């Protein structure tokens, strides 16, 4: 009937929810960013290792629903190895598309990841003003 299975999620969302990539913390991260608000039901924290304006390692932790966790996971995959500029340009639509779609009511979850990346980059540039 629709491409969405149980819970209204695609297979891809379920796969990333069940087996999120890049989970955890980077103790000596070059940049850390958070987005969302647990009061609203989601909170994502992202950790970056950066070398030559490129994201060489990335980890995240997310409090939230399946869509929030899967979007977080997918976003880290999409920006891993990318330049900071490329990462800054990641759109919420690109995340949703890479997950084969999100239920309309869950589209806001993909913003969570772009905002967390944005926050991390801001953190990085504030520590390294010369590199921006």
């Amino acid at each position, binding site marked *: 009937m629709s491409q969405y299975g*149980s819970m209204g999620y695609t297979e891809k969302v379920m796969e990333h929810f069940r087996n999120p990539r890049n989970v955890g*913390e980077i103790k000596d991260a070059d940049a850390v960013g958070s987005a969302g608000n*647990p009061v609203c*039901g989601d909170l994502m924290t992202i950790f970056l290792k950066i070398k030559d304006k490129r994201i060489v390692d990335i980890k995240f932790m997310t*409090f939230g629903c399946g869509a929030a966790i899967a979007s977080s996971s997918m976003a880290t995959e999409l920006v891993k190895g990318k330049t900071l500029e490329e990462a800054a340009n990641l759109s919420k639509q690109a995340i949703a598309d890479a997950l084969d779609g999100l239920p309309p*009511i869950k589209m806001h979850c993909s913003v969570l990841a772009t905002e967390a990346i944005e926050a991390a980059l801001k953190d990085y540039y504030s520590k390294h003003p010369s590199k921006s």
Partner: protein
Amino acid sequence: MDTPRHINFDYAAGYPVDPEVFKAMAPYFTERYGNPSSLYALGVEAREAFAEAQIRVGELVGAESPEREIFFTSGATESNNLALKGYAFRNRRKGNHIITSSIEHISTINITKYLERNGFAVTRIPVDKYGVIKIDALKASITDETILVSIMYANNELGTVEPISEVGKITREKKIALHVDGTVAVGKIPVDVVDDNIDILTMSSNDIYGPKGVGGLYVRLGTVIEPILQGGGQQRGLRSGTEDIPSTVGFGKAAELAKRRMPDDSKYTSGLRDRLVKGMLNEVEDSYIHGHPTKRLPDIALVRVFGIEGEAIVTELDREGIYISTGSACASKTLAPSHVLESIGLNEIQRHGALQFSFSRLNREGDVDKLLSVLPGVVKRLRDISPVWKFKDRFLEMYTSEEEEEFEQF
């Protein structure tokens, strides 16, 4: 599109129709399809089936004149609409003030908001941490303008049973009408409209293994309400529309069965519930049970786990064929968090971890074991990736709660 085998702890969302109920309904679809308004034999049969259902439903709640006091609607939502709007508009000359509680079902809440937009004043009395309405606040809010009090018999999220007979004494004495939303209580625990001085009672068929699409409304003789649907004047003018005899018969049968089975079912479901709650509190750290320790329905439990979000748990359990529900905003169509959990004092972070369990006579002992074998792992996995859990102390101190009741109290 086959239904996979599943373990259901969310019967409150929908009950299967009991096989005996289905058997009682079946002939009315294809053979006994008469219209109670028809003069001839087929119509007489329909009238009798309808009256029989009125009696069965009336008996379940102690109605004294079922054939004049029991009406059938399309469900609890319509019953609540008919009760509240029907009473308010019909009696507005007596006064314009209505009292209800802060933990009513969303239908009651939205109906009373509608009444506010139409000239009524509504007081929503608060509840304590168990979800019990504050009787003193209710008493204090009564004015000369008060015409109606509407309180649910039991709350569908917490399972807490409200002190309806106390409320009924007050409303009777003050000559105020009392409407009670009995959706999740009737057929689960004894409800008696006469003992409790209930003037109008909302009843649900599906909640007692009857069909969906039919509800009941008890209206005490002498309590006058006006219809909300205009039409052909069926059901003595109070509820127009051709009667749905198969569903009505099913509801009647379900009421008969509920009356008979209540003691056993109650013992059975509360046993399962207690096992599940104890198991969870033991095996999942930072988990809490809510609702009143003793004044509660046998088949509902609200357990809350800290640091993770409810919908994620629901999603995980779905994969295991286990169905539960959550008060988390993320799981609702409107993304609005449960007003009930807010009313008992839970902040939004806490509400996000609320898991609702509702049991039925169809649950098996093994269901609880299965859940208990799966849930701790799910919680652990989600907590492992949760920044809220990681920085638990910081988040916990944002809210110091007194809700860590001992489960042994139950």
